[in-house]
């Protein structure tokens, strides 16, 4: 099989993993002329975008799509009839370097089907990273998938070469994982996330001590660990999904939980819903995730036993505000940062701009668009120097209806 055909099969096999970021790692470059590559500060670089709106930052491939496991939701499950291929270690290394030199990519995201054993598979994945770093002195970004049961030395070595490691939790609940992915063991997944967290903490501590003692700290995945949950393959509610996220963020200091709408795949299993992926639900979950992490919301404020699902027609912050109309209208020229972050339509950046500007001038209705705040969404909830919503507006039962967007917005890029 030629390289191009292998690449087609093994990229097709990798695309259901939503993670693609090249962000959050240490700064490296090759000014010394002894290596290839650098890392981008801040958010990373997306070198291209596919028509699915997803960024292409890394060469995202599997080492092989042969797999011992038979996870029903997965394109590579053992019982699927998709064509199989396997890269040699050198082929992946060569492809990464060739793409990188042409500025197509930031680096490599390598995963693999489980072949022979967890340790064998992990060893193969690590071997690619080792060769890139040690032989080719590659200084670009490397993201490696971690195989849960792999032994500790392999994981330590993976962290030495990789910028980011990830293990997918796949399902929000253990029951569905047991049903859909019988060979996967959520306990092993969690134990390994725990192992990664301990190693990440250790490396961070060592780095802190590094400043005083002149010993080089052991390197371990400076861009941390992430995971992915599949949305819509089982019956889990948004409340279940978000509490699993909250648990994972708190337990394993994850950089990100990716939500991946379950999507039709070639040669799909008939045991799962075969329909268009729930993209809007996925979008709302990301918004709720953001509210919990950056806007000071507790999960119980976003979903609870009576509202276990996020509304699809309005965003979760607006939904919260409509349920808590007694807290509004809020005087924008006086409110605290915490309060401002809860106003529908106010992003974190807009809040900072408001806080800074109102020290010198009072905010007026005309300023909203200059602050990139959607006027219609925010105005019913706020008091400005020249605006006060009539009490009737907030009390109105039709307010929710008025604020619903006219058309479905699907344009949400990641």
């Amino acid at each position, binding site marked *: 099989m030629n390289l191009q055909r292998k690449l087609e099969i093994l990229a097709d096999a990798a695309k259901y993993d939503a993670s693609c970021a090249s962000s959050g790692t240490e700064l490296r470059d090759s000014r010394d002329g002894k290596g290839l590559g650098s890392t981008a500060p801040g958010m990373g670089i997306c070198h*291209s975008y596919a028509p699915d709106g997803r960024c292409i930052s890394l060469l995202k491939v599997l080492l092989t799509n042969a797999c011992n496991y038979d996870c029903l939701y997965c394109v590579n499950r053992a019982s699927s009839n998709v064509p199989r291929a396997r890269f040699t270690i050198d082929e992946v290394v060569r492809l990464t370097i060739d793409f990188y030199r042409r500025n197509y990519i930031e680096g490599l995201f390598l995963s693999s089907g489980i072949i022979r054993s967890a340790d064998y598979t992990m060893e193969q994945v690590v071997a690619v990273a080792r060769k890139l770093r040690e032989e080719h002195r590659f200084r670009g970004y490397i993201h490696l998938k971690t195989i849960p049961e792999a032994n500790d030395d392999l994981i330590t070595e993976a962290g030495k070469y990789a910028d980011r490691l990830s293990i997918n939790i796949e399902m929000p609940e253990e029951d569905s994982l047991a049903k859909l992915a019988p060979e996967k063991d959520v306990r092993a997944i969690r134990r390994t996330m725990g192992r990664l967290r301990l190693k990440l903490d250790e490396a961070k501590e060592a780095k802190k001590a590094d400043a005083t003692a002149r010993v080089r700290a052991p390197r371990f995945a400076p861009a941390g660990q992430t995971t992915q949950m599949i949305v819509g393959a089982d019956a889990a509610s948004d409340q279940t999904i978000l509490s699993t996220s909250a648990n994972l963020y708190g337990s394993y200091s994850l950089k990100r939980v990716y939500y991946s709408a379950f999507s039709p795949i070639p040669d799909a299993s008939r045991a799962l819903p075969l329909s268009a992926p729930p993209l809007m639900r996925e979008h709302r979950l990301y918004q709720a995730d953001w509210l919990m992490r950056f806007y000071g919301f507790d999960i119980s404020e976003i979903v609870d036993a009576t509202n276990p699902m996020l509304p699809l027609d309005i965003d979760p912050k607006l939904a919260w505000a409509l349920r808590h109309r007694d807290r509004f209208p809020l005087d924008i020229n006086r409110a605290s940062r915490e309060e401002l972050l809860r106003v529908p339509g106010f992003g974190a950046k807009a809040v900072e701009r408001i806080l800074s500007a109102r020290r010198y001038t009072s905010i007026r209705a005309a300023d909203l668009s200059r602050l990139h705040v959607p006027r219609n969404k925010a105005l019913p909830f706020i008091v400005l120097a020249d605006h006060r919503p009539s009490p009737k507006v907030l009390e109105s039962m039709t307010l929710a209806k008025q604020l619903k967007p006219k058309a479905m917005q699907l344009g949400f890029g990641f």
Partner: protein
Amino acid sequence: MTRHIILDSETDFDGWRRAARALALNNVAPHDVVWRTSGNEPDLFTPAAAVLPDGPLVSTFNVPAQFIELSQASILHRDPQRFALLYRLLWRLRMNHDLLDIATDQDVIRIRDMVRAVRRDEHKMHAFVRFREIGRERDTHFIAWFEPEHHIVELAAPFFMRRFADMNWSILTPDICAHWNDDRLSFTPGVSRDEAPTEDRLEKVWRSYYASIFNPARLKVKAMQTEMPKKYWPNLPEASLVKSLIANAGRVSSEMIAAEATAPRKPQQREQPMARQPSAHDSLSSLREKAADCRACPLWKDATQTVFGEGPAHAQVMLVGEQPGDKEDLAGKPFVGPAGQMLDRALKEAGIDRTKVYVTNAVKHFKFVPRGKIRLHQKPNTAEIRACRPWYERELAVVNPALVVAMGSTAAQSVFGKITPINKSRGRLIDMKDGRKALVTVHPSYLLRLPDEDARAREYERFVDDLKIAATQMQRDRAA
């Protein structure tokens, strides 16, 4: 009187700064200045020297550091109004030093928008430059053609130098070209597109990667175009596929949905887990294995793992704590976090070797609530203590220690089978029905929580004193 200022180039920040400073110090109002770049002079043009106001520049003035950053970046914008806008801002800044913080001011908004556009263009250049390789091995050169929206080539070039220092490369643009040859960065005047190579051997492979990584079941064309606007497409080898990928997406994904189920590739041969022979007697390792799957209470759900006891199988002393904490939950071992360190210190001081004692917890899963990036410890309730007690009982039966040390109220509740106040029971050996002795003391994490340093020292002493009772008992047992 209108003054004409001629700058050396489109990116002549120093020239703008010199002129603006002189103009401001001479109180020349913004509407009296016309800014041009060399080559775009008005017809009846007076030499630059003559238009700058005469007289020595005696006074100086300060601008916020932020203004320097903003002006350096915005001067790279293609808008011909930028020099005048910057001078007006400078003029207004002298009267209002805080002007840049007023995010609602029209001039501030305009300048910030310009800076954002320049930064974005720079970022997109980092992303969308595509090199093509020419020449043979050992003598290759990578060449790219790019059309930036703003004057950002000099700004963006160092990025490519840091990244591709080990290869020779050129980025050709209509305004200016950047080159990295023999470890030297240089710039030459702009060229036409014809100067750039038209293909590369890897582009076919790259295009097939692009087509394969696209998921036709989730079409979001708008999201793609927001981040990768059409103006960049002519220089992206993969962009030629976009149209056909979009056109076929609906068909491909509905075919995936409509396709007949195929017969599974091979019979479902799943390895059956080996049935273990149930042993008549518990050993510590078999207990540990069984406990790993324990679901006697709901705590297993949120925790990482069961944290079982640890220590010699026939230790003289068994230490019982409350429950694993954050660190213990991650590591799967009891007393390895801050409370464990406190315990180690106290044991050492009391003369007890930790490796000689068996250490366990009354409840073997971590109970907590997540709060952002941390987990807040929650005290286990009676039902959870009861649900977990059989594990303690079986550990006790296997290890068979002469003395059990209950640390804290949860441990005491488990050891005695009922709520047992610490302060009334601590500091003395208590005879148990099964012939063992028990000792009650505080949990080491209690010491960590005391806010007052004196109290902490005092309570630590008491804790060590309690452990010394255990040490003495161990010696007595050994002697007997």
